[in-house]
């Protein structure tokens, strides 16, 4: 609860800049506004990119640990399904994070390579993700 003094402070403190200040400030600053075309900066400072990067940092080692532990005892069919699911999850996460198609493709390629390596480690497996076991 505000007492009398705090209410008086609030009322007394409601001073505003002079009427001409808005025009002066905008006249001085608006000509300086430029579209920032630095693609790298825009990606780096974008909150979506940062969230995606953190997610990847957490997700990829997690996938590695889980795959190492689980895939060893999994039947080949399950390993293949799980790896394909992981690749799909990475692809969906990258798309939702708004990454450009080329970066998305690079990430998916990395995920496929990781999944392929995991699949190869499965007992008796001799196949690739999404491929035949010939």
């Amino acid at each position, binding site marked *: 609860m505000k007492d009398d003094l*705090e209410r008086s402070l609030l009322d007394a403190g409601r001073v505003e*800049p002079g009427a001409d200040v808005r025009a002066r400030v905008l006249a001085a600053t608006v000509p300086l506004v430029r579209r920032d075309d630095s693609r790298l*900066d825009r990606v780096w400072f974008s909150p979506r990119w940062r969230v995606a990067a953190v997610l990847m940092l957490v997700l990829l080692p997690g996938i590695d640990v889980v795959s190492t532990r689980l895939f060893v005892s999994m039947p080949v069919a399950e390993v293949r399904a799980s790896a394909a699911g992981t690749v799909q999850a990475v692809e969906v996460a990258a798309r939702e994070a708004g990454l450009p198609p080329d970066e998305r493709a690079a990430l998916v390629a990395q995920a496929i390579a990781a999944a392929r390596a995991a699949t190869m480690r499965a007992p008796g497996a001799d196949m690739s993700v999404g491929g035949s076991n010939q």
Partner: protein
Amino acid sequence: MRGRRDRRRDAASLRRLVNGDPEALADLYDAHAAGLFRHGLALTGSRTDAEDLVQTVFLKLATTGAQLLAVRNTPNYLHRILRAAWIDVRKRPSASLEQPADMDADRAAPDGRHATEAAIDVAGAVARLPAAQREIVALHLVEGFSFREAGRITGVSMFTAASRCRAALQQLRQIVGRR
């Protein structure tokens, strides 16, 4: 207090600014200039200097570019720029900031009451506080920032901010003769 809608609008304005939309700067001015001006006035005690600080904030905003996309709390960010600008100006050997006593003149009643008479006025009493206390009064009691936010803006802990505010209120009560 600023709500979620205000925060979303600020974030949208910053994105538009990064995309080169000058109208976004006007929107940000309309939303934040008054609060920034009051913060500047609390720091400098002079309307002219406070207006200059506001202009410095918007100059910085207009030229920052994509880094603005990483701003999560726009009011905090703007008030921190204003404070940094104030510190910069004070460091310059040719600092043009007027003396805080100027605040009495700026806030004096329009009928030209004498300073001793104006001293019983709350605004006059605030002008007699140290700058650090004036700043917290402006940020917490007038602008509605929490002690944590006011502390972040001023570079002190929330406890120091709260203690400064308490000390300011105590001093103000003595000056205006209220309990």
